[in-house]
């Protein structure tokens, strides 16, 4: 099967130095791919490269038949990739519903089905739709952030550490939601610090270190791998 997203030997960085030293990651349709690795491995940077927020100086990024290397973020959003940053990922001064509206900013026409779908994924938010996003708890804010991104019904959803700072209860909820999103036809690539839990629930995973690929395989295979386990002792 042709991958939906294919990062091929991508190099790049923000200033003069390259953070990514040749990263290759594939995401198939309807797949959850997790990127794990020690701090500074370049996991978030790799995600930013996909969404157009990084200066890519080598390699290629292909998405659904297009070469999107070097595209601007808003063009990539239009193309069908939505990104949820780790922090500052909601409009705090706007209500939950307005956040979703902004998510759908590029869409016209009747959006009732889209709203139903998103509120269906996050039923707790329906009661809070008129609350300001900034007033919600961390877990609920994370849901608003994901909901905003899903309003555009992307083919690929990028999540940067979606469970950071969340209680185990919310973490489990988020993982379940991610599974539901995949089942609805969206592929998800996520960066995670909680490596063990993430590898347990994903389809495939990549381990990055110092800006390059180290290991890859199914979640189960990576969990069983002794070298990987050693890297994350205590993760």
């Amino acid at each position, binding site marked *: 099967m042709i991958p939906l997203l294919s990062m091929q030997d991508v190099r790049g960085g*923000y*200033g003069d130095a390259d*953070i990514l030293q040749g990263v290759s990651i594939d995401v198939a349709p309807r797949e959850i791919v997790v990127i794990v690795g020690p701090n*500074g491995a*370049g996991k*978030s*940077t790799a995600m*930013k490269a996909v969404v157009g927020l990084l200066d890519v100086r080598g390699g290629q990024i292909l998405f659904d038949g297009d070469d999107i290397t070097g595209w601007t973020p808003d063009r990539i959003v239009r193309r069908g990739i939505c990104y949820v940053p780790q922090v500052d990922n909601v409009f705090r001064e706007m209500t939950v519903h307005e956040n979703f509206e902004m998510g759908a900013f590029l869409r016209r026409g009747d959006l009732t089905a889209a709203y139903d779908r998103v509120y269906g994924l996050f039923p707790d938010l329906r009661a809070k739709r008129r609350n300001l996003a900034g007033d919600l708890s961390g877990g609920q804010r994370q849901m608003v952030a994901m909901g905003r991104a899903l309003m555009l019904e992307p083919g690929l959803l990028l999540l940067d550490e979606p469970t950071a700072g969340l209680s185990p209860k919310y973490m489990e909820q988020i993982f379940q939601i991610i599974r539901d999103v995949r089942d609805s036809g969206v592929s998800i690539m996520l960066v995670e610090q909680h490596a063990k839990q993430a590898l347990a629930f994903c389809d495939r995973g990549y381990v990055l270190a110092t800006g390059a690929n180290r290991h890859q395989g199914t979640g189960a295979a990576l969990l069983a791998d002794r070298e990987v386990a050693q890297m994350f002792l205590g993760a």
Partner: protein
Amino acid sequence: MDPMGLLNYALFMGTLIGIYALLALALNIHWGLTGLFNAGVAGFFAVGAYVSAILTGIPASGRIGGFELPVPVGWLGAMLAAGAIAWPIGRICLRLRSDYLAIATIGVAEIIRLVIRSEDWLTGGPRGIIGVPRPFGDLDYMASQAAYLLLVTGVVLVVYWAVERQLRSPWGRMMKAIRDNEAAAAAMGKDVEKRRLEAFIFGSAIMGLAGALFVHFNRSITPEAIDPMIATFLVWIMLILGGSGNNRGAILGAAVIWLIWSLSELLTDRLPADMATQAKYVRMFVIGLMLQLVLRFRPEGILPEESGQRGRKPPASTG
């Protein structure tokens, strides 16, 4: 214009260039070195002028002052007063962002202007203060002008030397470290706020000194003598054009802009009367436009800072 007239005019211009050069050097301490947006230059200038006038001038009824103290005392008083005004403003505003400091300094200049206009017992109100002694004032006209120009040049050189020396001192190096990377400097335990306050007071005192030099040159001061916003704006464009962060640039900018400003006045004075008043505003428009062009095409100025671009790049975002 006959040669004598030309020479007199040149001497006159030279003195004013010197005074503006002082202001530009002072603003360079604020902006070029410390990144402080002082939009109230004229206020500190006015304080210096009036304090020196009060201390050294002849008495007048209804007004305090007229202590007829020696001129150097007046100058010292001017610097102290300007620095004293800078202290509370600095304490309140320096830790907030530049925009807020700018508004606050605009406000300070406005308040100072109000006080000058309203408090007759202190400043002589609209009449101002006359009878301010002028060093070398007893010589005949051209000699006196030349002598004062030499005096001003001397002051500028001394201040230039003093500022340059400060910049090369540990204090100066610390200021540059704070300007270029405040977070790192603070992490190293440098008292950023205190250093900024010192720079603010230092620069303001020099602005006061410039005011004192001005008032002794004119032998008098009135609220109309200087249009505060024009003066402040001229000093700003002098610094930006000359090269902010660079003391020689400040002096060069003062010379260039003042030359343009006063030569354009010569030109427009020759126009018929009704056009001449409008011409003044056209000149202001042109100066405003010049600032935009400099910001667009040569923001580092004629003489860029020696140690590299004086542009505070925002910190690089990290993954």
